[in-house]
């Protein structure tokens, strides 16, 4: 077999079980792909020795006939996951040199299933960003280009390294995390699939916290089937995360029948934004037609508080971030500023945090501090939490009226150029998450599926939103959409 790094998880699993390939071979193919892809800046801490050891162990396990689906599959892991003995710094200077003494539950679950870690993946600092331009490791580059134009494009963010690595076949799949769209937006920008499960499906233990009531981990993969397989291995109840749900994890892959006859798909009118490019509008209409042709019942629905999701998010997420990031004080781990003669503990905190946090993180921590401060708590934070209740209620009402899933665009545009948004005000960048952020606020599962390309040949994605805990049904609808859309384009290799 050639180009083993290009395999999907499901094909690799079948080949491993048949003995056509070994995990060591798969892993070597990926390690050399990673080596040759420095220009993408996707992998930031390589772990080849660990990968080879894990691959050998996986091969031994497969030989014994004890092989879960993820056994021997080489993965990239977002830098937000704490991995024992391997630098884990959330793409921030403030965690420089931090090597955890423990393993996040999600990566432990994957390793227990036999998965192989190739290394850690670049991301926006503390997962705050939509273009992977806030990382202390520098920008990630999207393997896709606008035709023959050599301008470097963003892979999206915050899971930009994960998206770029999967799209460029550096690994078979990657972990991501999603607080406002950080799995789905980069998946859409790079022509891959990414699912954010229901809040509580994946344990947050050992995942560097951004906004605890919104953060969820999920898989970023080449196909919907791969997302079903990998999500099953990542999730499950964890006593170490009190918000982790103690409910059974179904066999998601077994639920992929492709049959969606009679399923009711909602099309929310509030997602038709002013100034939305025609291509996005067309993609959405095409996706709707595909689901209809597959036998789904299409209904227009209304989610009246959609407009307020982004402003509510930009109160709640910074508020939680300001609290979560208070732990970076230069005392217990990571960076500590050099102090001047006579500096006390306050100077240590202030200098450490000024040096350690990048500009966007500082801004969000301070916005969060402001909205939580005396006199503004009610006006901003409590009001945003009330609006969040209304946003969730909008979804509950349409699901109660019989809607099985909701179809929307994943992003308001295709991937844009790195640096193109530098002079825009921060709110312009925040608009990237306009279609995805509602899902985090309501705690729902959402999946981005590649469904077409724009005039310049860049991938575009559609988003499906499902009922809580119904990832299996959502994945099946996504599978039907994937089959109908038949998106198979790959970026031409230039790196």
């Amino acid at each position: 077999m050639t180009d083993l790094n290009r395999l999907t998880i499901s094909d690799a699993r079948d080949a491993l079980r048949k003995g056509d390939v070994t995990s060591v071979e798969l892993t070597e193919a990926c390690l050399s792909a990673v080596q040759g892809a420095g220009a993408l800046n996707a992998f930031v801490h390589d772990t080849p020795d660990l990968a080879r050891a894990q691959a050998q162990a996986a091969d031994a396990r497969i030989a014994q006939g004890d092989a879960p689906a993820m056994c021997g599959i080489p993965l990239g892991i977002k830098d937000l996951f704490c991995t024992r003995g391997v630098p884990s710094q959330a793409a921030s200077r403030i965690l420089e040199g931090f090597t955890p003494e423990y393993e996040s539950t999600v990566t432990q679950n994957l390793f227990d299933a036999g998965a192989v870690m190739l290394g850690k993946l670049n991301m926006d600092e503390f997962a705050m960003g939509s273009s992977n331009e806030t990382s202390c490791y520098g920008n990630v580059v999207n393997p896709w280009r606008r035709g023959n134009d050599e301008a470097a494009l963003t892979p999206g963010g915050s899971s930009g390294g994960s998206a770029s690595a999967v799209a460029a076949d550096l690994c078979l799949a990657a972990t991501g995390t999603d607080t406002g769209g950080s799995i789905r937006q980069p998946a859409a920008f790079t022509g891959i699939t990414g699912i954010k499960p229901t809040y509580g499906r994946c344990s947050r233990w050992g995942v560097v916290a951004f906004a605890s009531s919104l953060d969820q981990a999920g898989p970023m993969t080449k196909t919907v089937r791969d997302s079903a397989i990998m999500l099953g291995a990542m999730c499950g109840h964890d006593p170490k995360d009190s918000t982790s749900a103690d409910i059974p994890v179904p066999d998601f892959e077994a639920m992929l029948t492709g049959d969606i006859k009679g399923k009711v798909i909602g099309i929310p009118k509030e997602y038709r934004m002013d100034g939305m490019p025609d291509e996005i509008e067309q993609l959405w209409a095409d996706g709707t037609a595909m689901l209809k042709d597959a036998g789904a019942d299409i209904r227009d629905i209304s989610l009246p508080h959609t407009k307020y999701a982004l402003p509510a998010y930009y109160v709640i997420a910074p508020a939680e971030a300001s609290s979560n990031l208070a732990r970076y004080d230069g005392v217990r781990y990571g960076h500590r500023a050099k102090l001047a003669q006579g500096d006390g503990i306050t100077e240590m905190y202030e200098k450490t945090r000024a040096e350690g946090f990048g500009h966007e993180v500082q801004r969000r921590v301070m916005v969060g501090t402001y909205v939580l401060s005396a006199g503004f708590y009610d006006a901003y934070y409590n009001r945003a939490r009330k609006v969040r209740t209304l946003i969730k209620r909008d979804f509950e009402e349409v699901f109660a009226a019989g809607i099985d899933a909701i179809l929307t665009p994943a992003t308001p545009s295709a991937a844009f150029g790195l640096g193109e948004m530098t002079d825009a005000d921060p709110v312009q960048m925040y608009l990237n998450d306009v279609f995805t952020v509602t899902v985090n606020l309501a705690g729902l599962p959402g999946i981005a599926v590649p469904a077409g390309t724009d005039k310049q040949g860049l991938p575009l994605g559609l988003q499906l939103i499902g009922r809580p805990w119904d990832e299996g049904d959502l994945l099946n609808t996504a599978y039907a959409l994937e089959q109908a859309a038949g998106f198979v384009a790959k970026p031409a290799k230039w790196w």
Partner: protein
Amino acid sequence: MSIDLETAAKVAKLARIRVDEDALPALAQEFNTILGFIEQLGEVDVTGVEPMTSVTPQRLKRRDDVVTEGDQQDKILSNAPDAREGFFAVPKVVE
């Protein structure tokens, strides 16, 4: 609501992030842009609406109050920028 330089400086102080004097005007400007965007929430009628505390209706689990993974002083201190004699070390706090 508009943020002036004094408020920007106060927020930076509360957040324990040192911001140079000459960076305050740009910072205040950014705060104002973001807060201007957030102001839209004022349009929503939230009368009688409960603020959300948990997005998934579940009762948080309780566990027995026992030590599960104790006695790991070395591991806990292993990433400290400055640790001495089994403690985290910081600049003098009390004169």
